[in-house]
């Protein structure tokens, strides 16, 4: 078979970025969902769009997939404008949207075999079943799968055509912890083959686990971009020194916790009860970035 001989080219740094977005705007019925979003995804990287529900993650990804129109902004995906790109371009991207989109009366194997006909050189069904851990469900009808199993089928369908760029829209929602870890392995496998991955998630651990860079989206804009460990560097510098004084908790937020501690210890002859020094974790940083009331203000 000649179809198995083909493999996507490995990306090089000389390539143009996989995704370039400038000033993307989109509103529904007068309500702005995206309001000047800028984004760049390098070839071969895994980029996570992180944000609360309704922040515009799905709209962004749908514009990039070329299935939703935009009101304004420049968008290039694999050197083409998704709004006008044709079938050869579609063959180079893979989409895992929030539904699996296969007829409920088909078995998992039938669905994969059917959709293989839309691709030149698809991944073999057996390989896909193994990769997403659905081998034992191959003969089960799609309508009888659990939510997590449907997500896995969606992932299998999304990578069936050996795409160079994969969009994963909240791929692990509804998966149990074992399935999530299996999915992470799958994404690492894709990346090892040079596939560029753009995923949306509202799981911080997932972003930290998978992504080279994370973009936090809030109110229709990208408010911060960076490697997960460096996200919110400004915010992370602020530590909270906290202790009990006369039975009540006192907290001081400071960029110089050492100085605060020295003063505190100098003025307190005995042990300081309940003393803690904390720095914000990824979750705290995230909550501050998206301006959720639950985050420290």
């Amino acid at each position, binding site marked *: 078979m*000649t*179809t*198995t*001989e*083909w*493999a*996507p*080219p490995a990306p090089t740094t000389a390539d143009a970025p996989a995704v370039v977005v400038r000033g993307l705007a989109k509103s*529904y*019925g007068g309500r702005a969902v995206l309001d000047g979003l800028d984004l760049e995804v390098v070839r071969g990287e895994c980029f996570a769009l992180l944000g609360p529900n309704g922040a515009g993650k799905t709209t962004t990804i749908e514009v990039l*997939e070329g*299935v*939703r*129109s935009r009101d304004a902004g420049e968008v290039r995906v694999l050197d083409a404008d998704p709004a006008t790109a*044709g*079938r*050869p*371009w*579609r*063959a*180079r*991207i893979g*989409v895992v*949207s929030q*539904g*699996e*989109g*296969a*007829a*409920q*009366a*088909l078995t998992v194997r*039938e669905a994969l075999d*059917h*959709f293989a*006909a*839309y*691709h*030149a*050189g698809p991944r073999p069904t057996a390989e896909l079943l193994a990769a997403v851990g659905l081998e034992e469900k191959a003969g089960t009808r799609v309508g009888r799968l659990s939510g997590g199993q449907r997500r896995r089928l969606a992932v299998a*369908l999304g990578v069936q*055509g050996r795409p160079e760029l994969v969009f994963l829209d909240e791929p692990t929602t509804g998966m149990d912890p074992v399935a999530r870890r299996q999915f992470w392995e799958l994404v690492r496998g894709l990346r090892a083959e040079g596939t560029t991955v753009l995923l949306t998630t509202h799981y911080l651990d997932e972003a930290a686990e998978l992504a080279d860079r994370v973009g936090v989206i809030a109110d229709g804009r990208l408010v911060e971009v960076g490697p997960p460990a460096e996200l919110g560097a400004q915010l992370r510098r602020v530590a909270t020194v906290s202790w009990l004084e006369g039975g009540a908790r006192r907290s001081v937020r400071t960029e110089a916790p050492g100085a605060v501690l020295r003063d505190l210890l100098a003025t307190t002859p005995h042990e300081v009860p309940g003393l803690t020094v904390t720095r914000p974790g990824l979750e705290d940083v995230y909550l501050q970035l998206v301006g959720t009331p639950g985050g420290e203000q």
Partner: protein
Amino acid sequence: MTTTLVRPAPPSAARVALARTRLELRLFARERQQVVFSFAYPIVMMVVFGSVLGGDVLPGGVPFPQYFLAGIAATGIMLTSFQSIATSIAAEREAGQLERLQVLGTPPVAYFAGKAGLVLVTAAVQLALLLPVAHWGYDVPLPAAAADWATFGWVAVLGSLAGTVLGIAVAGLPGSAQSLTTGVTAFAVVLQFFSGVFFAFPELPGWMQQVAAVFPLKWLTQGMRSAFLPDEAAAFEVAGGWEHGRTALVLVAWVIIGVVVCTRTFRWRSAER
């Protein structure tokens, strides 16, 4: 194993259309209700009308069951094409199945071809079951001349395709799958009365005849009459003849214009939020 770095071209629309047709047939066979309804409906109608009005004679000395067979054959084709295609597309769109096809870059015409393939196969089975019932149950003579069978063939095929195109077009109207199904069913019933399925077409009021002439069902029914009725009955048609040329023209126009329009306007997704 050598690895090339050039992505092969996507499979042709024809290959995708073939895969779609196989899929449509498989899914149809798994919808037991739909299978029973599609195949039983024309037979039940034949039995009901044949039993009640079997003794009536229409202008030209044609027994009612013979006249009615043409109408019910046409109606059966209209239901399996127009009605079931419109409702199934609306349901597939609502279930998000068309979004998957869109992101795969499926050519709309390949999707349409899959629907047409399903319609042609189911219409053929439906007619193969209906004709023996009419013939042996209600003494309807089947055409003797090869030319009449040929007419029956092209009318059935063109009618199926025109009905499919009409179904695809209607599936593009706004609204939920539920409301569309209701609307399509009501429209199909009215169209049947207007198109002379249940009554002799020439006896209908002129305005009804003119409305019906816009849609494929009237021509499909008339074409079926030309295959099943004796040649003398042609004189009792509104135009005084079978109008084969005009029938073919209207049905082909529906197919061609319909495909062009639907290819450009087809919506894979429900309206934007």
